[in-house]
């Protein structure tokens, strides 16, 4: 640019001129865009020691529309003056003239006219002076001629107040770099919520919307009694192995158990009762006392149902909980020793398997899952039991979304719940839907200290029933 034609012209003019050039004037003279001249100036500046340039901001003035009219026709007060004949004019008539209303008070304060209120047929306006100078028009014409600087600061101000004059900043001629709307903005400085806990909030909401009351689950440590025996899970069951359950060294045993209830549980396991054959083995109190890290929140449900059973008469309830559980299993990309279990429970007279399916349908609908299928399953403490499947559009297959069942009478009756009360329940993990929702493959990136904080910063709102974002288009292999 520094060697372009504009720059050359500029240099020649500069040589010839005395006292510098104004870029705007030069642009007008040469008939080119001001921006082009500015560009040439800048590139010459960049060469250093060729030219000196100084940035000035100038104020320019121009007339408003009304100002233009007045410059042409004269000010309103002047027109008022001219329209008054020697014999005067009725004020009412004067006011009806175009410039009347506006010009009257100004003409009065200029002492060009006076009003005789005592005239016979109403107030009459008379000239005071024989002639006047329409200063306003003169000044406006000066501005129109490009000589606004000949007016004083005060005069210009006055005209501006009357909205006859407007200030024009030279920003109008300034070149502005166009915005790159493809670039990103500055992200606001904010805190963030953890994605798994965002999903947890949503599930809590869903349960509350369905009328479920939250159970207390603030105890990670549980006795084998509440975690297994009260649920009619036999003492020789493989799940009670050291391999699947974290048992405690300290405190190793539960200090208190509700002994009359314990006796009923013992009898049911070893001899049967309540319509059951039982498991027919030697039930040991010591085994039930063993403390552990709870393997499911169903132990909290058992406690809640036991408390419910002590209240007479029986009232139906809907309970839920979402909290941490612990399994001593092999760890891999999708399994950790600790995870969160979601559990829902309904206790009422005459509940059926059909009711369980109905509740599940409403629950999963709130997650945006409408197609459900059920498959027989096995749990030690529910019978019938069902695995719940939904159709995953992306994977194009049915995937398991939860486990459910009707609690066994051997679990409920020793608690003291009435015989015709059924309790239906279901559960799922919190981690799995979260990993699917947020597209995370390794659970360690989501839970625990090895979390990817950038993922936490960037994770969107949890909207469980929203349409999943279409996956980015893949290139053909």
């Amino acid at each position, binding site marked *: 640019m520094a060697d372009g034609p504009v720059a050359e012209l500029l240099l020649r003019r500069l040589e010839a001129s005395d006292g510098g050039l104004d870029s705007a004037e030069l642009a007008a003279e040469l008939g080119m865009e001001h921006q082009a001249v500015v560009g040439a100036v800048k590139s010459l500046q960049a060469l250093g020691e060729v030219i000196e340039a100084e940035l000035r901001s100038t104020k320019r003035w121009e007339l408003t529309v009304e100002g233009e009219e007045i410059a042409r026709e004269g000010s309103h007060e002047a027109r008022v003056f001219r329209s008054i004949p020697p014999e005067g004019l009725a004020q009412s008539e004067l006011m009806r003239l175009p410039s009347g209303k506006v010009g009257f008070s100004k003409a009065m304060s200029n002492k060009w006219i006076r009003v005789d209120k005592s005239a016979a047929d109403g107030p009459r306006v008379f000239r005071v002076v024989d002639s006047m100078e329409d200063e306003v028009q003169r000044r406006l014409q000066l501005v129109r001629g490009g000589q606004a600087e000949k007016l004083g600061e005060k005069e210009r101000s006055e005209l501006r107040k009357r909205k006859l004059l407007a200030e024009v900043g030279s920003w109008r001629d300034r070149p502005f770099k166009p915005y790159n709307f493809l670039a990103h903005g500055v992200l606001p400085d904010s*805190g963030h919520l953890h994605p798994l806990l965002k999903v947890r909030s949503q599930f809590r909401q869903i349960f509350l919307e369905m009328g479920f009351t939250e159970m207390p689950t603030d105890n990670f440590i549980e006795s084998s009694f509440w975690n297994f025996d009260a649920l009619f899970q036999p003492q020789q069951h493989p799940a009670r192995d050291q391999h699947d359950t974290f048992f405690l060294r300290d*405190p190793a045993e539960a200090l208190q158990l509700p002994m009359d209830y314990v006796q009923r549980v013992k009898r049911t396991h070893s001899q049967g009762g309540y319509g059951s054959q039982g498991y027919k083995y030697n039930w040991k109190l010591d085994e039930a006392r063993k403390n552990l890290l709870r393997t499911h929140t169903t132990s909290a449900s058992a406690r809640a149902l036991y408390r419910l059973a002590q209240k007479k008469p029986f009232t*139906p309830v809907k309970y839920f909980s979402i909290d941490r559980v612990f399994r001593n299993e092999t760890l891999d990309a999708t399994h950790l020793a600790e995870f969160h279990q979601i559990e829902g429970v309904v206790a009422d007279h005459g509940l*059926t398997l059909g009711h369980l399916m109905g509740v599940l349908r409403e629950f999963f609908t709130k997650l945006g899952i409408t197609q459900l299928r059920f498959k027989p399953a096995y749990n030690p403490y529910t019978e019938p039991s069902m695995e719940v499947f939904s159709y995953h559009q992306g994977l194009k297959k049915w995937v398991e979304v939860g486990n459910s069942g009707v609690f066994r009478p051997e679990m409920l009756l020793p608690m003291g719940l009435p015989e015709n009360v059924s309790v239906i329940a279901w559960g799922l993990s919190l981690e799995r839907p979260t990993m699917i929702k947020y597209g995370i493959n390794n659970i360690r990136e989501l839970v625990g*200290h090895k979390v990817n904080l*950038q993922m936490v910063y960037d994770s969107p709102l949890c909207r469980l029933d929203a349409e999943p974002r279409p996956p980015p288009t893949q290139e053909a292999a």
Partner: protein
Amino acid sequence: MPDGKIQKLIITEETAKIRPFAVAAVLRNIKFTKDRYDSFIELQEKLHQNICRKRALVAIGTHDLDTLSGPFTYTAKRPSDIKFKPLNKTKEYTACELMNIYKTDSHLKHYLHIIENKPLYPVIYDSNGVVLSMPPIINGDHSKITVNTRNIFIECTGTDFTKAKIVLDIIVTMFSEYCENQFTVEAAEVVFPNGKSHTFPELAYRKEMVRADLINKKVGIRETPENLAKLLTRMYLKSEVIGDGNQIEIEIPPTRADIIHACDIVEDAAIAYGYNNIQMTLPKTYTIANQFPLNKLTELLRHDMAAAGFTEALTFALCSQEDIADKLGVDISATKAVHISNPKTAEFQVARTTLLPGLLKTIAANRKMPLPLKLFEISDIVIKDSNTDVGAKNYRHLCAVYYNKNPGFEIIHGLLDRIMQLLDVPPGEDKGGYVIKASEGPAFFPGRCAEIFARGQSVGKLGVLHPDVITKFELTMPCSSLEINIGPFL
């Protein structure tokens, strides 16, 4: 039976202390193919893993009867007195030697503990002193079964009599199909130490009665009793309608040891009906929902912590002893922590008594992120407490850390002020307000630690972390933290 007599298994009293129960039966003239043989072995393995609880409750031994001669004796002897050639080995070993050899056997080493430290080991002999097996570890090679075996002697030994009988029933019912006399099992007599004897397998069929309307009511369907009987029969529970037309009599075969209550029958009926054919209905249960107050408060606080510019973390409740003690400059015994027995790795030694280590480890794993790092977590910690029924209790803590080139005590202090503002706890010691007082702690820089008192009690501490703590958690910048128990603010 060739000589008109059934096989006999005699149990001696020595077994009482180690593995008291045994049952036996015979499958005659069985015809194995490779597939059937493999399936036979696999069934034993599966049963061992499940109902036998990895051989601890029951162990199965199957033997080629033609290589043996009864009666058989089930006894227990000193390990040094037991010597035989075990399955797939070429010479004889004593039991002691075998226990050593199998220590490195990837399959068998898991079962050694069942008898290892006992004075007597179980062993079964035939009338010629041939060892059939040393349950639950290994069978003898002499009586091993091959595809060509025609007559099988099955013994099940264990510590649970009910399960042993069930296991025997399952094996014989599943494989009697392949006997020349299909679905026929030859009984065996078991003589107990007290002289009493019993034949096995029990193969007890029993009859149960269930009301048709019970099934309908529990499932949520409306089938006639006849249809229900048909459905159950399809599930191999032979049923027929009897009595007043409402009762269904069901014959429960020995293969269905899982049917112990009417609800088991209800499930079978529902399965036969088809779960996906059941009409989905909503219960009419009317309830008003309530939130658990501690969780409600937690939810409210979380959102405002994020609004204050902190990022939420979710860390593990289980950690190493070091994490909550040594690295924070305290002794583990002072922490009143809950200890896990036999943890597989150090990561699962204790349950956390503070949220701080988790947050510091999160920072350490995210060192490349731009500073400052401001993290928080509101979650449970566990402390031993003999006033509770299990002996330990959860407390809901709120912990926040600020990690930057400068420690930022004023930031963490400001966060505390904001939290108190949100909890509507005014500054000042009186009228249920809060105040912080100079304190010290091994985890904190001397002179830069304060204890927080609110509503008359100590609720936690805040301060600049001690450089030793910083180093032990593999961090490099200064850090200040705040941890309080939010229970008192409910």
